């Protein structure tokens, strides 16, 4: 479980992350979406204690990151696959990480095997392809057998086989009851892997909802109708107070229409239908629509932020047992 509370990061005047509050729950894959520059990577770095929040708090299983004993055993992260010394072999890269957290050497061999890098374990990382580097980074995340996993754009640079592999890996990690938090800008990829979505734009939380609800809430659903008796159908539908849109291809579209209702109307008037299909915009469209709003919001700074209610509402974060100390105050004590 990762809990964010009012997490904010400012760089001078620029607000990179603005008052983010959400929880990442175990047992499901949570997708973290946002356009470039939305603050995804900054948020993830703050979760790992790499960047200090200007305000707010992040807790990993109820604790601050820098209070975790052997943090790799709690949370494994792939932030940037290139974040390693290219002159070091894959094995030694993982070994130094393992040793720092008291993880046995045998585990290094295990994770190398899991990601399929055993044969190149002794090769220097700088000779690795983007995909191999990504696999090595994932091996590093898995090293401590953590309950929480975090991946920043994990499918970048992977070939189709690799994408398939990471997709199944994330799902299986979630099925094991782990918390899986994945950022991506690939909507189609998220649709296949994520159960829950957290969407941010301009550093603000835009949505925190299940995948299905997200699509339903944020996309246009309509009914497409084709009929050889188009004009008659138009009259009938308009006669019953239904707004119909004609499309260029000769079909009719009814926003938020019920196919049962339209079908029955057509039957009553003995109109032949060639098509009567409920349509729903893709996740891609939903995402574009949402982030377009965030851009719009940016243009009119006085307008309230886009209000997308989360249904079902995510369970509220359990209250902290003790008043949270100011994040970052502990740095000085460490």
């Amino acid at each position, binding site marked *: 479980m990762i809990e964010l509370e009012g997490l904010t990061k400012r760089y001078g005047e620029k607000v990179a992350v603005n008052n983010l509050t959400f929880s990442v729950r175990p047992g499901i894959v949570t997708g973290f979406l946002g356009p470039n520059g939305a603050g995804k990577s900054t948020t993830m*770095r703050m979760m*790992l*204690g*790499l*960047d*200090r929040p200007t305000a707010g708090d992040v807790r990993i299983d109820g604790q601050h*990151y*820098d209070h*975790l*004993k*052997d*943090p*790799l055993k709690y949370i494994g*992260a792939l*932030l*940037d696959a*290139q*974040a*390693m*010394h*290219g*002159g*070091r*072999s894959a094995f*030694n890269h993982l*070994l*130094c*990480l*393992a*040793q*720092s*957290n*008291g993880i046995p050497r045998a585990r290094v061999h295990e994770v190398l095997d899991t990601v399929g890098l055993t044969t190149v374990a002794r090769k220097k990382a700088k000779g690795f392809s983007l995909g191999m580097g990504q696999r090595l980074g994932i091996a*590093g995340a898995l090293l401590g057998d953590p309950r929480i996993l975090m991946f920043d754009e994990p499918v970048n640079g992977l070939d189709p086989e690799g994408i398939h592999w990471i997709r199944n890996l994330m799902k299986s990690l979630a099925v094991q009851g782990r918390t899986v938090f994945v950022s991506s800008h690939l909507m189609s990829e998220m649709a296949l892997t994520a159960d829950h979505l957290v969407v941010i734009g301009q550093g603000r939380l835009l949505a925190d909802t299940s995948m299905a609800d997200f699509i339903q809430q944020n996309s246009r659903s309509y009914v497409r109708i084709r009929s050889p008796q188009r004009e008659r159908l138009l009259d009938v539908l308009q006669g019953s107070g239904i707004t119909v849109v004609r499309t260029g291809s000769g079909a009719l579209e009814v926003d938020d229409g019920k196919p049962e209702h339209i079908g029955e109307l057509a039957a009553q008037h003995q109109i032949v239908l060639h098509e009567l299909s409920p349509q729903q915009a893709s996740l891609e469209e939903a995402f574009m629509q949402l982030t377009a709003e965030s851009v719009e919001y940016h243009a009119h700074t006085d307008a309230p932020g886009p209000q997308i209610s989360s249904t079902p509402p995510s369970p509220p974060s359990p209250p902290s047992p003790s008043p949270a100390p100011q994040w970052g105050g502990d*740095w*000085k004590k*460490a």
Partner: protein
Amino acid sequence: MAATQVLKSEWTKIRSVSSTVWTLSLAAVVTIALGILISLLSNNQWDKLSARDRLTFDPTRISFAGMGLGQLAMIVFGVLVVGNEYSTGMIRTSLAAVPQRGTFLFSKIAVAAGLALVVGLITSFITFFVGQAALGTHRASISDPGVLRAVIGGGLYMTLIAVFSMGVAAMLRSPMLSLGILMPFFFLISNILGAVSATKKVGRYLPDQAGSRILQVVTPLDDTPYGPWGGLGIMVLWVAAALIGGYALLKKRDA
């Protein structure tokens, strides 16, 4: 987070990159080879020396003449040990594994300093013995007063110059920037400041000028206000300042 775990991890890091081997061996080879060369030349030129020069002739210091160049490789070693974390992006992986930044930085520096000390001491002893052999009849003996102190001091000096570089690299983060400042400083600027009479009084408080006083056995005919250990103490202060600066910035900054 046990510090021993982090020390072990840092040892794995340092032994698993080739820059460690080449910088340290270059430091040793340059110091030893140049020491032999200058000792041989000094032996050959003995007859041409003035009476004053013969009076202050310091065979131990002569054999360490290569250290001025060898220390540059030690600087590269120190800069790369810390700076490579930043230039490769490894720092984020490292700090995610060890969020206690003080433990991380000082474990790294302790391991690198320990290794530099071993290499520095071995280099210093070899340099002394082969240098003295090259000096023929003008040689000093390890049992002469102050000689053992100078030879051990040579190892300490090389270690301190490496640790100073680590502190500077922790502050500047970029290896190129660190080297771009440290190399010309220790190779040229410090020597110029120490040689020009107007700046001499300031120059002798620079880390290398003060620290290298430990290499001298025969007290030179000048008015240096500190002795061998005093000079090394001044260098230690410089190193401490660099480390405190590096630590303070690492703690404060986003990784």
